[in-house]
C-alpha cells in the first residue's frame, strides 16, 4: 500500500477527470468497459501531451475535466448520494449549489495529482455483468511504477444519453469516493444543516483557490 499511495493521486485525479466531464459522444451505445477504456486512454493522452498540465496549471486541468468528462458522469446522482436523505428536502437552488461546490472541491483538490501522470497505463479488467444489468462495476488498474492501483467505476445505464452509460461512483484503492464524502457531509449537515454544508464547501473552495 505504501508505494501505491504515491501513485494513487494520478489515479484519483484520472478517475475524477473521467467523472467530471467529456464531450457528448455519438448516441450509439457502447459497452461500459469499452467506454471506460476509451475515456481513460483519451484522458491519459490528453494529460501526457499537454505540457501546461504537466507543470500543474490548474485551470487547464479544470478545462480538460469539463471538456472530456462531465457528460459521462451522473453528477447529480453522485452529489445526492453523498448528501444522503437530506437531498430530497433541499431546494433546487441548494441542490445546484451543492453540485457546483462538490465538483469544484473534487477537481481542485486532486488537480495536482494529474500533473504527476507520466507513463501510467490503464488495464480494464473483464466485465462481470449480465447483459441486461442496469448498474455495473467496471474494474481497472493503473499500472506504472510500484504496485498497481485499483480503480473501479460504478456505471448506470442511461439509454439515449451520450454513450449509454454514466459513472456515478469511483473507487480508488478500495475506497469509494461517494461513501467517503457521505460521512463527512453527514457530519456537517447534522451540525449546521444543508446551508452550513454549502458554506463549508464554499469556504474550502475559496481557500484552495487562493493557494493556487
Amino acid at each position, binding site marked *: 500500500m505504501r508505494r501505491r499511495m504515491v501513485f494513487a493521486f494520478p489515479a484519483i485525479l484520472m478517475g475524477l477527470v473521467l467523472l467530471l466531464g467529456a464531450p457528448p459522444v455519438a448516441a450509439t451505445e457502447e459497452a461500459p468497459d469499452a467506454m471506460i477504456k476509451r475515456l481513460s486512454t483519451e484522458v491519459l493522452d490528453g494529460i501526457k501531451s499537454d505540457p501546461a498540465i504537466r507543470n500543474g496549471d490548474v485551470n487547464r486541468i479544470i478545462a480538460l475535466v469539463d471538456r472530456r468528462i462531465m457528460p459521462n458522469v451522473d453528477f447529480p446522482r453522485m452529489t445526492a448520494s453523498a448528501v444522503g436523505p437530506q437531498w430530497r428536502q433541499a431546494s433546487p437552488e441548494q441542490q445546484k449549489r451543492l453540485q457546483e461546490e462538490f465538483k469544484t472541491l473534487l477537481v481542485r*483538490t486532486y488537480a495536482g495529482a494529474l500533473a504527476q501522470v507520466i507513463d501510467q497505463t490503464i488495464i480494464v479488467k473483464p466485465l462481470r455483468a449480465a447483459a441486461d444489468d442496469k448498474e455495473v462495476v467496471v474494474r481497472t488498474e493503473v499500472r506504472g511504477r510500484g504496485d498497481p492501483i485499483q480503480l473501479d467505476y460504478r456505471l448506470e445505464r442511461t439509454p439515449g444519453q451520450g454513450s449509454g452509460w454514466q459513472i456515478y461512483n469511483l473507487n480508488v484503492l478500495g475506497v469509494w469516493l461517494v461513501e467517503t*464524502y457521505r460521512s463527512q457531509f453527514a457530519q456537517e449537515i447534522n451540525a449546521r444543516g444543508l446551508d452550513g454544508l454549502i458554506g463549508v464547501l464554499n469556504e474550502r473552495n475559496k481557500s484552495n483557490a487562493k493557494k493556487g
Partner: protein
Amino acid sequence: MIRISGLVLRSTAWRIAVSGVLLLSGCATTTGSSDPRDPLEPFNRSVFAFNDAADKAIFKPAATLYRDLTPALVRTGVSNFLGNLDDVWSFANSLLQFKGQAAAQSFMRVNVNTLFGFGGILDIASEARIERQREDFGQTLAVWGVKDGPYIVLPLFGPSTLRDVVAWPVDLKGDLLSGIDHIRTRNTFKVLDQLDLRASFLSLGDALEDGALDKYTFTREAFLQRRRNAVFDGNPPDLPADDGTPKRPCAGVVHPRGARGIRVIRFGVSNVT
C-alpha cells in the same frame, strides 16, 4: 504510524489486547448522531489530533529528509526488502485463511525475490506479474469470523480497530525483523521501515488537507473501507444504501490487506454480515 522498539511495544500491546478482549465481548451503544462504528469518537479525535501534531513536527520532516537524501533506487530496494519479509507473513496468514491460491502466490513471490532478487532487494515477482496479496493476522481473525470492534486511533500508530489491536501481538511475532538479534541492526531497519512508509504518503497528505472537509472523518472512512476491501480481497459485498435507518452497532466487516505497519480494522456497520 510508527513502531517503537520491539520490547516496549509488546507489553503495551498485551495490555491493549487484554482490554480489547474485554471490550469485544460487549457492544457499544449509539449516541445521537455519531457514527455507530466509532463509539469512542471523542477519544479517537483527541488521539488523532495528537498524531497529526506529532506528524507535522517529527515524522513528516523526517520522511521528507529521507526522501530527499536517499536515491530513489535505495528507497526502492529498502521497500522491496521489507515487502519481501511481509510476504512471508502473508504466506502464513493465507494458509490460516485457507486461501490456497494466495498462499501459493506469496510463496512464489518470496522464493523468486529471495533467490533471484538478492534477498528481496529486487522485486522480480512483481515484474513477472505475480501479484502481492497482503494478509495479516487481523485479516485472518476476520475471515475466522471475528467482528471488527470499535474504530480506535492508536497514539502514533494511527487508525486501527479493536480486532486488529488484539491481533497485534501475533503480527509482531510474525514480523521477521523482530527475529534479528543484533539490536542496532533491528532498530535501524524498523526506523527505515517507518520512514519508508511515511515517505510514500507525502504527496497524499496535501490532498488530504485540501480535499477533506474533516481530516478525521475522511481518514476513518478511508481506513475502514480499505480494511473491508482487504478482508474481502478486493470484492467486498455491497453495503445497503444509507437511507437513515438505525444501524446495528458493533457489526463488523473485516478488511484484509492493510499497508505495512498500518493496523486497520474496520468497524463496518452492516445489516449484511
